Structure formats: C-alpha cells, structure tokens
C-alpha cells in the first residue's frame, strides 16, 4: 500500500486514509513507512465561524493554485462535527467544491470529528501526512465552524487563515478574539456585503492591540500610540487582512500572494522548522499520553479503579491521594 500511495494512486490513497482514520494496525504501519516522505507540503488551515465561507474559499484557493505556473497539486481535508448523541455526521463541505471535480491534481476528503473538540479530528494530522507523502504540494485543512476554543489547527498548519465576514456585530467580534490570535492571515470574506469598512476597522483595531511594533492603548478615553518594546524583531510577521468574495474570485490573487509570502517568511525566519518541531512535539506528546494511559489502565483491574473512585466520592481520599493509591 505505501508504494502505491507514493506513486499517487488515488484508490490506494483513499483506502489508506480510511485505515489511518480508523487507527488500524495497517494504517499505523503504513504511516511508519511513509513518514520519511513527509514534511514537504505546505499545510494551510482555514478556520472561522460557521457559514463564513470557508468551503467556498477552499474551492477558490485550490482553483487558483491549479491555475498557477507551474500548477500545484492540492489536497483538501474538510472536517465537520460528529453528533455527540448518535456519533453520526453529515459532511457537506463538498457541495461548495464542485468546480474542482474532474481534476486529477486535486483530492478532496471529508471527515467527521468523532468526538474531538478542538475543531479537528484526532486522525486529521495522520491523514495530512498521507497526502503529504502522496505528493500534494498544498494541503488545505478546513476546520469545523469554529468559535474561540476550536484552535487545534494552529498546532497542525504552517499557515492559518481565519475567515471573518461583515455584519456579525461588535459583540461577536469581541468574543472572537481567541480565534483571531491564531491567525497568520485574516480573510474578510463576503466583501460584497454591506459593512465591510466597519468590519475591517474592527479587525484592524484588534490587530493593533496585539501588534508587535506599535501599541495602541486607551488613555483617558483616547487611543494613544506606544512605542514597541526594544526587543521586537524587525522581521516579525505582521498579520495582513485580505478582502475576498469567495463566490466569484475577487481578492483571490492577492490572498494567494500572501500565502506565498507567509511560506517564504516561515522559511527565512526559521519558523518553518520551529512549527514543524512544535507540531511533532504535540503529536509525540499525545501518543505518549495515550500509550502510557492505556498501558497503566491494562495493569489495573476495573475493581481497583472503582474502589479508588468510591473513596474519592466519599471524600476519604483526595484526587491526588487516589492517584498515589492507584500508581501504588
């Protein structure tokens, strides 16, 4: 299977994605073999509130990469939420990507979160590795419609696009601060709608608060500029805002140019390596936790565990004392 995947055979890629998604022994073994071939693709995350136009943007970004000279091969992983009650899901992002059909340089895969919270599924990282090894130059990862806590994407992608739209209102803007923090590029989509100017001003205002070289502070009711701390590096990335209309393609060439600039910035500043390291750190840590946890759980009987839990409930032990008791 790994050989066929390296050759870019679509059925093999698709079947391996399923094995990896289901975390089967075959999937794990293939990932071991393919890992040496990963690390080349540009992983781009697309996140933002539900309905802001993420899928439509993914469609346009892919179309533009396909029209580039030379055309880049694009894989798309679109994540939608699983129902917490039934475990089922309706994965509808493809509806917006019909223009990409019939192009063998594009591969679209939908997946459900299967109980994960941060906006991605546990298997998303592994599936991106399969597509990376299969030779896709760019991997676009659409997260579930995110609020402020669905920020796992920042640990996976090299470049994160946060999509906002006009008319969501100032209150919502403030709530979204958490997700703005993870942006490398802010996309103001639906720029054909009224209220773009106001929305862009609001975004700029929030960006300036976190601006590394200039600070605006409220001082007796007035906004005042404060000089940057002396240790701010000159080559820091200043988060740009790009307006787009994903239903036609206005703003797309400019957005693609920014994506290229960010990639170049990551490579020149050494951040590409740093993000790579922190991504693999996250993955390794997750694996260690998961493995140690299940090893430990296998060593201990359900009875022992529930006895400790009983004592905890009866307040005979504190959580830390229970831990001591269980770890023996």
């Amino acid at each position: 299977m790994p050989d066929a995947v390296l050759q870019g055979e679509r059925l093999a890629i698709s079947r391996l994605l399923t094995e990896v998604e289901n975390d089967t022994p075959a999937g794990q073994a293939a990932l071991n073999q393919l890992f040496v071939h990963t690390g080349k693709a540009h992983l781009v995350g697309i996140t933002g509130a539900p309905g802001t136009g993420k899928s439509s943007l993914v469609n346009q970004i892919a179309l533009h990469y396909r029209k580039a000279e030379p055309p880049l091969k694009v894989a798309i992983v679109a994540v939608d939420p699983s129902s917490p009650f039934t475990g089922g899901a309706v994965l509808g992002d493809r509806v917006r990507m019909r223009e990409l059909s019939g192009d063998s340089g594009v591969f679209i895969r939908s997946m459900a979160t299967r109980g994960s919270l941060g906006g991605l599924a546990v298997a998303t990282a592994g599936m991106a590795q399969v597509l990376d090894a299969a030779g896709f130059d760019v991997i676009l990862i659409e997260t579930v419609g995110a609020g402020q806590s669905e920020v796992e994407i920042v640990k996976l992608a090299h470049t994160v696009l946060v999509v906002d739209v006009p008319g969501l209102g100032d209150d919502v803007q403030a709530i979204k601060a958490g997700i703005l923090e993870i942006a490398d590029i802010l996309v103001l989509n639906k720029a054909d709608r009224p209220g773009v100017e106001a929305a862009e001003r609001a975004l700029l205002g929030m960006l300036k608060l976190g601006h590394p070289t200039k600070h605006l502070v409220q001082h007796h009711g007035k906004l005042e500029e404060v000089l940057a701390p002396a240790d701010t590096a000159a080559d820091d990335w200043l988060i740009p805002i790009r307006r787009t209309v994903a239903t036609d393609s206005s703003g797309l060439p400019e957005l693609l140019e920014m994506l290229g600039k960010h990639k170049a910035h990551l490579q020149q500043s050494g951040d590409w390596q740093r993000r790579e390291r922190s991504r693999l750190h996250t993955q390794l840590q997750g694996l260690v936790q998961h493995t140690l946890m299940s090893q430990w759980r296998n060593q201990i009987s359900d009875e022992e565990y529930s006895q400790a839990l009983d004592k905890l409930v009866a307040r005979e032990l504190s959580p830390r004392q229970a831990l001591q008791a269980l770890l023996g």
Partner: protein
Amino acid sequence: MAEKKIRVLVGKPGLDGHDRGAKVIARALRDAGMEVIYTGLRQTPEMIAEATLQEDVDAVGLSILSGAHLTLVPRIIELIRANGQDDVRIFVGGIIPDEDVPKLRELGVDGIYGPGSPTHAIIDDIRKLVNQADQ
C-alpha cells in the same frame, strides 16, 4: 482501535431539483450513527464516481426523481467499478416505476426505495449489506 463507522455518499445525479428526499435520507442515516457525505444537486455520473473514490465510502445512495434513472444509474455503477471499487454497495431512491426495478437489480443495485419508504428499513438494509461486504 476506533469502532468502524459506516460512510455513505448521498448524491443527486441529473438535473432535477427534488432534494427533499436526499436530505431526509442524509439526516436519517446520520441519526443512525453513520457518516454521510452529501454532494448536493446536479451531479454528473463522473462527479459521483470521483467523490465515491476520494471518500472511500461503503455505500452510495442515489436520489433520482427525474425519470432518468435508467441512463444515470448504469453509468455511475460502471464508473465506480472501473475505479476498482467492487464492494461499494449501491442504493437508489425516488420515483422508480415498478417495471424498472428488475432492470436496476440486474445492474447490481442493492436496494430500491420509492415514496413513503420507511427510513428505518433503509437503515437496516444498508447496515446489513455493508457488514456483509466487509466479511
């Protein structure tokens, strides 16, 4: 190892805009714990076969109320098999006259459902046939 999820593609090939049935089925399958990839309206047979390949689904459900099932269904099945997906199960729903049922069966359609078909029967059939294909 995570529990094996049944993945189903629900598509509407052809040009008619009757999408209520497809949406009802998509929701019912989700509520039965399946993962449903919904492709939307006006899909060509090529688009459906391509999505079936990329999504590696266990079953494909086609909703056709336009009367064009005898041209669309054979083409879709042919394309899916040509991609090497021999064990993907095929289900068809919508307006299918009784005399066409044997023809579709002969083409390899696993289940055919007209107006008023109870969704629990559809769910049971999909579960049963997908699990058979897995063995």
